[in-house]
């Protein structure tokens, strides 16, 4: 006759299942608490950040209104910037002021020593015709040029006539 085991199949297996059930219960509890904490944190963060966003939005709307109120000043500033950028280029392209300053200096050096006979100013060059009666005044004129701020003078032509003296054609830079 075959032996019949009347004892429970395995008390060890039951213990193991009990342990697993206990672990799962703990896990479920921990996860539930974590979900609740995270949900509460998310709700709180959403509330706080939402308030901050709304506050920033209100501030933004108020600032935009302020900018709109300053539209006249903005137009004036835009016009000023526009005109200044154009005027800056126009003034930079001027040849008059600089050329006149040099010519004035040259005429100052010529004062009492000779006469201006002709002058031509165009972009990049300034030509002067000068008449000087004697070689001594010519020397004086040349040495006086050293006292001016003229950086370079090119002698384009020099004509000597015993009756009228020296006729010079100068190019100043």
């Amino acid at each position, binding site marked *: 006759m075959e032996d019949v085991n009347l004892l429970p199949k395995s008390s060890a297996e039951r213990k193991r*299942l*009990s342990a*697993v*059930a206990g672990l*799962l219960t703990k*896990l*479920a509890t921990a*996860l539930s608490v*974590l*979900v609740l904490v*995270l*949900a509460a944190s*998310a*709700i709180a*963060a*959403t509330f706080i*950040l*939402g308030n*901050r*966003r709304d506050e*920033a939005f209100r*501030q*933004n709307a108020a*600032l935009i209104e*302020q*900018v*709109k109120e*300053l*539209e*006249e*000043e*903005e*137009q*004036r*500033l*835009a*016009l*000023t*910037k*526009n*005109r*200044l950028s*154009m*005027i*800056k280029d*126009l*003034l930079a392209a*001027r*040849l008059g*002021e600089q*050329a*006149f300053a040099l*010519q*004035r200096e040259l005429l100052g050096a010529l004062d009492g020593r000779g006469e*201006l*006979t*002709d002058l*031509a*100013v*165009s972009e990049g060059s300034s030509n002067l015709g000068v008449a000087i009666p004697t070689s001594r005044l010519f020397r004086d004129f040349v040495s006086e040029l050293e006292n001016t701020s003229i950086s370079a003078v090119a002698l384009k032509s020099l004509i000597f006539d015993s009756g009228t003296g020296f006729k010079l054609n100068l190019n100043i830079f």
Partner: protein
Amino acid sequence: MLSKIALPALISLAAFVALGAVAFFGVTKVVRLRGETLDLRQKNVLLEQKIGSLQRAGQSLTPELAGELSSALPSANPSVSLLSQIRSALAGSDIVLKGIDVRPEEAGGGDSGINKVGISMEVEGSPSELFDFFVGMEKSSPIMNLSNLELKVANQEVLAKAQYVGFWASFPEKIASVEGFSERLTDEEILLLEEIAAFSAPKELKLPSPEAKLDPLNRPSPFSL
């Protein structure tokens, strides 16, 4: 026994899914709100800077100053104002205006948007007076640049042929958007502004209104600019 395991297992699974959902939607929402808030705050800082810049501009850039700039580089052909300036500069001197010619150049405005008008003139006078005249023209509004000058001297009198170029350009039609940035004036621009403000402005041309009753024997000269 199995039911003792199944229930906590199901709860764990549900809690895990809920955790994922809360983490995903919660974090997404928080990140989005935070991003929007930071973006708005950044815009607000720029707007505050813009308001400060515009308020300062409002204090320093008076309508009169803007008017002087518009006068220096007007939006319409400045021929009449230029002639007025030449006439004013010649008034009180012994310089004789022997001829003047006005012709438009580059009516299309070119790439720069600046239109030009050429003015050629012949004037006669003493060298010093002529130099004063030409230097004075460099300090007058509307701006005109000397492009060519020829002087011939005979018997202490100088005959000068001068070619000037006057300018005009359309006013800007658009300003930056409300949230766009408005640059403040640089120090260099402020100096240039002061320089232009010192230019002599053309006298205002005031023609009598059609309603005004005019004395037919004492009519104002339309050329007295």
